[in-house]
């Protein structure tokens, strides 16, 4: 499984890429693997919405489960990946690239400090794998 070094991670298996004041988030490789084939992605927010850390911004559905996807840190939505509605399988094939879910303006950069780096997240994954 692949967990890029330049990203930060949440305990609920989201990643965030930070570029200046802008955050991009999606599901980790581990999350997509656990969910198996993704068949549906739906945004639960609109562009312009202020969404709190831990609040759901999207829901995904796989052949065996459905899950809400949460904001890694608080932010105001600037872009939603509409393409995923037609091609949800990208979440499986390219979770860190084409399958980003939402982009947002980070409200409080200090919240980023509470997230895991690559090493901590890999440990988090291993613990659950037993």
């Amino acid at each position, binding site marked *: 499984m692949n967990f890029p070094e330049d990203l930060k991670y949440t305990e609920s298996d989201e990643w965030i890429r930070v570029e200046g004041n802008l955050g991009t988030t999606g599901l980790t490789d581990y999350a997509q693997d656990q969910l198996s084939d993704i068949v549906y992605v739906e945004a639960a927010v609109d562009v312009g919405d202020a969404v709190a850390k831990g609040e759901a911004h999207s829901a995904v559905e796989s052949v065996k*489960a*459905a899950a809400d996807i949460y904001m890694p840190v608080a932010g105001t939505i600037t872009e939603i990946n509409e393409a995923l509605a037609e091609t949800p399988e990208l979440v499986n094939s390219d979770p860190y690239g084409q399958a980003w879910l939402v982009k947002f303006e980070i409200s409080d950069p200090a919240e980023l400090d509470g997230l895991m780096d690559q090493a901590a997240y890999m440990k988090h994954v291993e613990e659950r794998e037993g």
Partner: protein
Amino acid sequence: MAYIPHTEQERQQMLAAIGVDDIDDLYGAVPAGVRFPDLELPDPLSEMEVMDELQALAEANLEVKHASCFLGAGAYNHFIPSVVDHILLRSEFYTAYTPYQPEISQGTLQAIFEYQSLMCQLTGMEVSNASHYDGATALAEAVILALNHHRGKRSKVVLSPTIHPHYRQVVRTYTQGMGLTLTGDENCENSPKELMALLDEETTMVAVQYPDFLGNLEDFSELGKAAHEVGALFCVVVNPLALGMLRPPGEFGADVVVGEGQPLGIPISYGGPYIGIFTTQEKYVRKMAGRLVGETVDVDGKRGYVLTLTPREQHIRRDKATSNICTNQGLIALATTVYLSMMGKTGLRKVAELCFHKAHYAAERIGALEGYSIWNKKPFFHEFVVKCPKPVAEINEALLDIDILGGYDLGEDYPELKDHMLVAVTEMLSREEIDDFTDALQELSHD
């Protein structure tokens, strides 16, 4: 073997856990005097005596087979081919619900799939669920769908005043505490034009009835367009039997079509069980409540039926599900499926046309009576409003003496329509019965 779920030891453990010595202590809050009231029951009867008593009760009832029924208002007396009951009596189909282990009941799923297909054809919509409890709850679920479509960001629902009054009540009950504004039905004269003026960016849905509760047929195309212009959903409540001859709402922009399926082969028996039709466009399918049967192929490529799109809503998301409706009216859906299959497209159209023509014959005769007039100014289907020379209740009581069930007294639901009677005419009424009704009305206007 007796089914006793808990042993004495388990009961003692449970009582100990909650700190109570005796089960009777749990009833301590109920005053002793009312705990075991004297029910004053009669002495026990033998089976033969019970049958006699029930028979006497049944015979005290006047049912539509022994009366001329001009009462409709949402429940209609139609002919039901005997094959409908015959199929319903097959024990393989005995269940009120979607089965709990659905895929093993392929016959039931196939029947529901066919029901869904028929409903889509009737309404002109893309998707139908496996049905709801009745027309009123189906409308309430349409409101819930619209709210979820707008993710709770819109809170205004515009309801036409000529949607069945009970349906509007159920919507209000269903959505109480949700902070919605339900408007549009304050004045019974509100036409599509007035409803259009109420539409704004806060509106999640506008709903109308077709034919409406007072029998009228309106052109809703403009209202539908106006709803879409502000991003609101457009919902149409239908009488499915009328769609045998009317343009399906899917052709004039409806996003959701709901209705009461009772006219399609379900008897009018003391209020139920009925069946709620719920159809919509495919883009809203994931917001739709209830069960949905899909057709697929098994590993050998053979056709099979499955419950589809349900795990997410009811099995996994649970507290986040958009509705808690997890089942359907299984047996009643089967009845409507058999009815529609028996009638076919031509048969259904024939029934609708018979209702239409007989109703128009009745309206023409009643309109010519002294003291009576027809209130409807627009085209109507099989129901119309009659302005009467005296209170409707009084007329109906006199009619009952000659085994005629008069029309619905509109005064209670629409104060403006005091002394107005809603008359329904179906294919079950003969010309002679209509003439007798008209003569009786004439006679009642004199004294």
